[in-house]
């Protein structure tokens, strides 16, 4: 398979889809979901800079997107009455805010590696989430900080009051961020981070400082998380403690892993899947979080490459699939349907009692 031409063509296809999506899904609710997907894709890609590319499992990613979201909300409140053009740069400010948080907290987190790093990141998100509730003057307490993205003077008739306009803003920043994060994988730092992921001891013996590499990747990842966080603030016009909670971090982790951490585009698939679960599926069943968790566990157990990995494997080997393979697949699907049926019955029963 000629990978480079394949990649080039799919890039243009993706760009075209990005532009055309609102034409296919024109209703406001669908646009809202598309906007959420866009934000989540940036968050998932930034998270995978840590997990998939550098081997750091962080449970505290929402700290950087959340703090950036708060900063953006305050910034938008300050900018009220200026012009809509200023909104174009708010995500950049969010990125800077995220990166600053990454500089501070990343210093503590990257003192260690492996399991200890994960636990420190967990403690940091709990710390920041609790601090947010303790400081209502800065973070709005339980109700959070609300803002208005319509900053003032329209730019060529665009004032970002409609979901369609917000979608295109998010799409623009999604394209820019994705291009930047992909570009990073083709730089020396990107490759060295991969080496530190695979074998930090050998990387040190070659002359790289694993801690500095991790710290730098942490800061850059926090920058893009900040961009995503700012876009979330713009999209929902309200930021609360939930934006930087362990739950939000866990969701980003779940979505990214489900998509596939070994491939650059994996997290994007995971983000779409995750948003569909939380926004669409939640309307049909109370058990959507259980399904999400079960899907995650099943993927960890049986398909650690995620949806992206499974897709690539399928493309490469579906012709070699034996009868036994197809039967096994059918059996798996039947079991899944049965389990879903059972779980739905249990939820109905619990609702009645």
């Amino acid at each position, binding site marked *: 398979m000629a990978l480079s031409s394949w990649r080039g063509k799919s890039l243009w296809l993706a760009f075209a889809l990005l532009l055309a999506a609102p034409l296919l899904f024109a209703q406001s609710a669908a646009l809202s979901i598309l906007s959420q997907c866009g934000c989540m894709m940036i968050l998932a890609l930034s998270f995978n800079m840590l997990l998939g590319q550098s081997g750091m499992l962080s449970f505290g990613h929402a700290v950087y997107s959340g703090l950036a979201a708060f900063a953006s909300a305050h910034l938008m409140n300050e900018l009220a009455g200026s012009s809509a053009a200023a909104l174009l740069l708010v995500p950049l400010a969010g990125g800077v805010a995220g990166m600053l948080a990454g500089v501070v907290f990343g210093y503590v987190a990257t003192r260690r590696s492996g399991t200890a790093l994960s636990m420190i990141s967990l403690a940091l998100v709990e710390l920041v989430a609790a601090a947010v509730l303790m400081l209502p003057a800065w973070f709005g307490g339980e109700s959070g900080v609300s803002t208005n993205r319509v900053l003032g003077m329209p730019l060529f008739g665009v004032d970002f009051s409609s979901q369609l306009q917000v979608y295109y803003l998010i799409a623009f920043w999604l394209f820019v961020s994705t291009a930047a994060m992909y570009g990073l994988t083709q730089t020396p730092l990107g490759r060295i981070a991969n080496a530190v992921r695979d074998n930090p001891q050998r990387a040190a013996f070659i002359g790289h400082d694993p801690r500095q590499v991790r710290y730098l990747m942490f800061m850059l990842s926090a920058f893009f998380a900040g961009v995503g966080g700012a876009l979330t603030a713009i999209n929902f016009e309200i930021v609360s403690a939930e934006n930087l909670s362990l739950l939000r971090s866990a969701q980003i982790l779940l979505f990214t892993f489900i998509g596939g951490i070994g491939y650059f585009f994996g997290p994007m698939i995971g983000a779409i899947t995750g948003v569909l679960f939380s926004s669409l599926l939640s309307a049909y069943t109370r058990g959507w979080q259980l399904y999400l968790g079960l899907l995650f566990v099943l993927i*960890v157990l049986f398909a650690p490459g995620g949806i992206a990995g499974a897709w690539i494997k399928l493309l490469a080997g579906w012709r070699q699939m034996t009868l036994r393979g197809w039967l096994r697949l059918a059996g798996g699907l039947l079991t899944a349907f049965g389990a879903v049926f059972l779980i739905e019955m249990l939820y109905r029963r619990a609702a009645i009692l």
Partner: protein
Amino acid sequence: MEFTLITLLNGLSYGLLLFLLSSGLTLIFSMLGVLNFAHASFYMLGAYFAYAISIQLGFWPALLLAPLLTGLLGALVERVGLRHVRRHGQVAELLFTFGLSYVVVELVQLAWGRSALPYAIPAQLDGPLFTLYSTAFPAYRGFMMLLALLVLLAAGWLLKRSRIGMLIQAALTHPQMLEALGHNVPRLFTLVFAAGCALAGLAGVVGGNAFVTEPGMAAGVGSIIFVVVVVGGLGSLKGAFIASLLIGILQTYAVALDVSLLSALAHWGIQIAPDAVGYPLLRLTLAQVAPVLPYLLLVLVMLLRPRGLFGLRD
């Protein structure tokens, strides 16, 4: 004076409960190399199982049966899940236990609902153990401390004196050698994992009615025990012990103290105006900050002594 003593005792009982939890976690980490993210979920299951059993059979049978149930469940999880995932690496193991913790919370909510359960302290243990002037020390807290100490002493004796304990100690440092000698090391792994989960379940039985039994209880204590093991030094039981007591006593003391930086500064004659930049931060009392003190301690320890109090060099 009595405040200090009673608070110290309360802090000790909480700290011992934390150690009951974190000792199992440390044992599992030392042996299997994986930090069981679902450990607090077994704590929660212990409480929920105890509640279910106690309404049928009473508290004392629950005290015995609930930990056994959680231990069995732990054995199942290790045998079917963790063993399968081990070949994909340490990150995969951690992710598996993380996913498990996520799923367990949902299943518990499915089975028992989202609100707190009326899992109550048994009548025989309710009420004060002794009273110092006007402050009472609850009998149940005393029971918790006694139980924790007995269990931990028994576990320590088991490790040091029994044959199985000797095998476990050997497997901690030289699993391949042990396997070469003919011992069933995978079964030992399952046993240790189950024992750790049983300890967590036991902590849940006594913690569930002393504090609260609700779906959020796992998250509440989970993060704290991870702080305990990292501060104490990953893999060090001694470190886990010191860190548990330290955090238990620290938090219990802080909750009762209503001082803030603002009041301290005022005590020294420095007044800060309400519109000053750092005012919201200075205004926080120690009691308000108490829930995050463990995390602040972790940050401090990571900055000053990255390997933890008794941990081996990274």
